[in-house]
């Protein structure tokens, strides 16, 4: 079987992660930022899976399951915060949430 080399997966993972970071920093909409975080998590998952396959070990897969579970919990909490925010501010713009300072 002509396997795809691991470097392909890793490059893809790095590109996805980079996109996530950029979106995380530059986007104003809280839902978009949220999606950026999910993107980064999944980019990391991809890297884990690739390594697990390359070295025939289960550790990476176990990690991925954990990340998926945490990401699900995070999505629940995060979306709840987004809803609460919208109810209070009538907006999802992160820049309007700036009371906690100095």
């Amino acid at each position: 079987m002509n396997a795809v080399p691991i470097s392909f997966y890793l490059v893809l993972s790095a590109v996805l992660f980079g996109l996530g970071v950029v979106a995380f920093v530059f986007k104003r909409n809280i839902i978009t930022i949220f999606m950026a975080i999910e993107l980064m998590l999944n980019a990391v998952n991809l890297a884990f899976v690739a390594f697990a396959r390359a070295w025939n070990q289960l550790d990476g897969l176990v990690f991925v399951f954990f990340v998926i579970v945490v990401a699900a919990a995070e999505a629940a909490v995060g979306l709840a915060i987004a809803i609460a925010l919208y109810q209070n501010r009538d907006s999802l713009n992160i820049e309007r949430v700036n009371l906690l300072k100095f």
Partner: protein
Amino acid sequence: MPILDHLWIILALPLAGSALNGLLGKNWSKTVVNSVGIGSVSLAFLAVVELVREFAQLSAAQIPWVRNYFTWITAGTFRVDFSLRVDQLTIVMLLVVTFVSLLVHIYSTGYMAHEEGYYRFFSYLNLFVFFMLTLVLAANVVLMFVGWEGVGLCSYLLIGFWFLKQSAISAGKKAFITTRIGDFGFTVGILYLFWTFGSVDFEKVFAKAAEGTVGVGTLTVICLLLFAGAIGKSAQLPLYVWLPDAMEGPTPVSALIHAATMVTAGVYMVARMHPLFSRAPIAMFVVALVGALTAFYAATIGLVQTDIKKVLAYSTISQLGYMFLGCGVGAYAAGIFHLMTHAFFKGLLFLAAGSVIHAMAGEQDMRQMGGLRKEIPITYWTMFIATLAIAGIPGFAGFFSKDEILDAAGSGPHANLSLWLLGLIGAGLTSFYMFRLIFLTFFGKPRYDEHKVHVHESPRSMTVPLMILAFLSIFGGWFAAPHLLGKTDYFEAFLHPVFAAYAVQPGIEQGASLAGAAGEAGGISPNPAMELLHALTGPPVIVALIGLLVAWWFYIRRPDLPKKLAESLRGLYTLLLHKYYVDEIYAALIIRPLLWFSTNVLWHVVDEGVIDGTVNGVARVAREGGEQARELQSGNARSYATWVVIGAVGFTALMLGFWEVVR
């Protein structure tokens, strides 16, 4: 032997009394405060009486009786035990201190009856007794120093007892700070003592001193340093200035602390340290010189004072001078004897003066008194007896002790004619100013407004102590009476083991005051009648009578004379009235420069500039750094996100060895 093994009980009783009254007494009635205060001291007195009974059964080899309770400090070879010691000298001091304290406590219930802070007064007084007993019972120099400083503290607290009165506070501070100068010398002396002898324990130090391995120069320095402490505590030249001001305190305090007990601590210390002093002739001479000069000097100031308590204060300074003169010429027993009789008659004089002040509703100026003889007879008679005693009229306590001191100064082994002469003139002056006090206060016509001041005799609680002390002022000196007939002086003989144990050459040291015994041994045929006649017509008696007569002439016969004399000797009179301007000289030479230096250099430059500057500078750096750093906390979530990314990138770079590459 219960008390001998449990000497600490004597200390614990007044301490417990002080703690009870001080911590709980605020809400107690006066009766309870009285019973705690007087009860603890009378129990302590009874314990001392029991101690004397047990002590009498000890064999000579068991004295000094030392009991070690626990080790207080150990550091290398330095070791201080909480150990107490009893010998004949301690017994005399214990009896005097507890008995006079007891009388003063009883007297105070009458005198302080209308004062605020009644419980506080008794608490301090008990605390004082505790520290004084510690001082007397201590078996090493450091523990003695604890008592020494403790009585100083109580003195401070009691002088400033009326702490709402500015003058009382200043007097308290003055007393504390002035004695501190002497105590500095005392502390250095203790250190030097330990350095030289390798121990602070009396027995070890004395034994080593008796070996004669320590040089005279070293001993002289140690003795002079220790004596500096005595100068401060016992108000001798040049540190006597605090004692007259200490009269701001309540009169019972003046009687107990500033006449009978605390101020004599210096004399006790010199007598206790006699094995060192006896081996340092120069130090001995300094002690005698300071004593004689003070005796004379303070007496001259006493001549013109008008405040009844101030006269007694200068008189106390003068009498303390006699005690040091006695110790300085090697007659330690005579010095201690005078300490004891002085405690009786001077305590009595102060208590009687308090009774006069009480009767006059607070008036202390003798010019506003007069003719009180018939109004307050008990006070008059007791005070008159005390005056006879202090003046040295034969038959009264002061005669015996003062005579012994002057005898030793005039003809003992360390005799010095000029010191003897100073003491003699001082004795004449003493007689004069004391009878002046009596004549001004009790004789002549009343000079107060009889309609305003209702003169009344003091209550029984005050007059009974007066009468007891009057009894002692007469008979307290009779232990020495057989000496006049060329026989044994019982007081001297009682203390003899203490002062003979480490004498330079056994026998010589005490030869001065055991003149009777020496006379017999020397082959001079002692004729009792001649001896008695000689003593009764000796110079001290003659000058005392002259003083009496002059006072009588000046203040009874020709009351206009003092004023005329003051006019004709204007300069001298003003000098004396202003106490030789010593307070002013000290203010100009020491206090004002010190105050200037403290204000302008230590306060404004060092404190405000350097210390405050450093502390405030550190605070300002922190505050301004914080001002800058808080800008990071912008509230903008995206900037936080950026920081997270920067941090993550930086950390990753570090992990990948980026740092190594850059380097």
